[in-house]
């Protein structure tokens, strides 16, 4: 039987990660993600894992990639300013296909901003923050319970597709304590691994039926080269434009061809809805409350929530937009995912945005107002 436990979002993030095998964490303190590092410092040695506080966020990201290369599931956590600093090495992990999970507990920006205030201002950055075309997966939880289960999914996707996964929390969820049920049974996906001196091994060739190259952990007998330069299937750098095209296209397709597996969404009360509110992360909580209220007033409104923010659930939203009259995008920023929504929805239904940039949460009342206005 599963147990009901009181847990903070940041803590659930660590416990979920440990539950699915995370055994290395490198980080640098920053509000509001700091508790994640603190819990890891406490918990990891108990499960024979390693925690290290590095000299900065760049080094933390590098160490996480290093540990993953050695075969260990690895994670780092940060917030806005630190997330900006990690970008170069996130791109490296993306290009060299090193699984790892980067938690960004968002706070109010830009720059140092309001360090202790909630926000969802890094949504576009999480997709586009590093230079060059690159694949990325971004997930966003809306409760402490979901934080626990979704961080496991983050690792699963990262391991399966050998790509960095951004776990985009908000301060609101990170600092919230709720009762959660620790699931008895969780599904764990580990990266496929090759070991033991297959010298003919092409570490970046994708075997039939796989969606990513099979991983050869350092130190297990399969010596090869990893680089952030354009490389061929052997892992050696190349200037060949044929190889360059092959590599980048394959990286991007790894995600594109598997959107159905990667994308997760939640819909509520959309069957009969005239209006849908698109929201994600912590904002969902206000939206649910507002919808309840609105429905009690007879307004037929539903919710559409991308759990996977990137790749963006185009298909799902497009379908929904054909059924409703109005889509309200509610996000805790100046307008980011709404741009994607506009792109996807086209002229299918009308579109309205409700955002906020003052460091306080969007309240249910504000959402309700947006629903009632037309």
């Amino acid at each position, binding site marked *: 039987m599963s147990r009901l*436990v009181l847990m903070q979002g940041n803590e659930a993030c660590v*416990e979920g990660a440990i539950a699915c095998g995370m*055994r*290395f964490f*490198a980080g640098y303190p920053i509000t509001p993600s700091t508790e994640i590092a603190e819990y890891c410092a*406490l*918990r990891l*040695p*108990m*499960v*024979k894992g*390693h925690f*290290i506080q*590095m*000299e*900065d966020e*760049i*080094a*933390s990201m*590098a*160490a*996480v*990639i*290093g*540990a*993953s*290369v*050695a*075969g*260990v599931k*690895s994670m780092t956590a940060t917030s806005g300013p630190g997330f900006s600093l990690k970008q*170069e*090495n996130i791109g*490296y992990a993306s290009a060299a296909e090193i699984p790892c999970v980067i938690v960004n507990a968002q706070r109010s920006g830009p720059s140092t901003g309001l360090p202790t205030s909630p926000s969802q201002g890094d949504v576009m950055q999480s997709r586009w923050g590093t230079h060059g075309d690159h694949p990325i997966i971004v997930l966003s939880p809306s409760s402490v319970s979901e934080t626990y289960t979704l961080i496991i999914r983050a690792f699963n996707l990262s391991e399966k597709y050998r790509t960095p996964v951004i776990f985009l929390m908000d301060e609101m969820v990170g600092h919230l304590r709720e009762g959660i049920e*620790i699931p008895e049974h969780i599904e764990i996906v580990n990266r496929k691994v090759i070991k033991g*001196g297959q010298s003919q091994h092409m570490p970046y060739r994708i075997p039939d039926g796989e969606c990513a190259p099979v991983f050869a952990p*350092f*130190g*297990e*007998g399969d*010596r*090869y*080269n*990893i*680089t*952030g*330069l354009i490389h061929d299937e052997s892992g*050696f*750098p190349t200037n060949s434009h044929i190889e360059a095209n092959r590599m980048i296209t394959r990286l991007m397709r790894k995600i594109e061809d598997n959107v159905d597996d990667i994308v997760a969404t939640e819909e509520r009360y959309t069957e009969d809805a005239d209006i849908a509110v698109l929201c994600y992360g912590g904002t969902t909580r206000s939206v649910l409350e507002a919808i309840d209220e609105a429905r009690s007033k007879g307004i037929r409104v539903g919710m559409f929530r991308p759990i996977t923010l990137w790749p963006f659930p185009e298909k799902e939203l497009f379908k929904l937009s054909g059924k409703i009259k109005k889509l309200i995008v509610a996000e805790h920023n100046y307008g980011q995912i709404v741009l994607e929504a506009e792109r996807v929805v086209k002229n299918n239904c009308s579109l309205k945005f409700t955002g906020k940039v003052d460091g306080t949460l969007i309240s249910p009342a504000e959402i309700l107002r947006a629903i009632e206005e037309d």
Partner: protein
Amino acid sequence: MASQLVEKYMRTEHLPHIWCPGCGNGVIMHAVVRAIDKLELDKNKVCIVSGIGCSSRAAGYLDFNTIHTTHGRALAFATGIKLAKPELEVVVIAGDGDIAAIGGNHLIHAARRNVGMTVVVINNNIYGMTGGQYSPATPAGEFGTTAPYGNIDRPFDIAALAAGAGASFTARGTVYNPAQITSCIQKGILHKGFSLIECISVCPVYYGRKNKKGSVIDMIKWQRDNSIPVEKAGKLPPEELKGKIVTGVLSQATYPEYTEEYAKIIEKVSGGINYEQA
């Protein structure tokens, strides 16, 4: 067929390497494998970690677990590898720019923590890969493409900087004396903790040309004529050491190694309370 050593430790299918004629990188890479060979390390347990630069391309040519990372970050990647799998023998190869310009912070912190790894710095006094800009190891007054009027920065003494930050082993050699480099690297690997070997290299193409140092042969001879073994240097007055290269094992001390200390924590708490049930 190349020499036995080269065949055994290098990815010969990728040779000749991309380095310019006469470049010191090849000699130093040779010394690295010679040291590893002498120590009879298990190839599967050796990791070579490099950053970005001419020198850092070495990783690709070596038949170990090799990773060519981002500019300046090799030590931070290496720290992750070593901590995750302490049984690995981690060797970092990095240029003077990589380790002391953009990577300076990781250098001082890795040295301070005393993480068990060996850092081979290829110091050619310039940014080679990007075409000859001055580096933190370019002597004051010399030229680079970004120092057209002579460099006004004072250079670092890289080995001394590392020692000052806490490196428990530092040494220096020159391309003129590959045997000495080999022996320093060997000692560095054997040393428990963080070790750094500064290898004074030659970049005839950029540093040499920009500073009218003559041919690569002239440059190597200059090294020969201006190196002083540390044993001898200790007896000389500071004036006589100006502009000279002091070679050999420069410093060595015993401090707790980081991964061993961490192992003790794990030992202590991993059998301990189950936090979830607390």
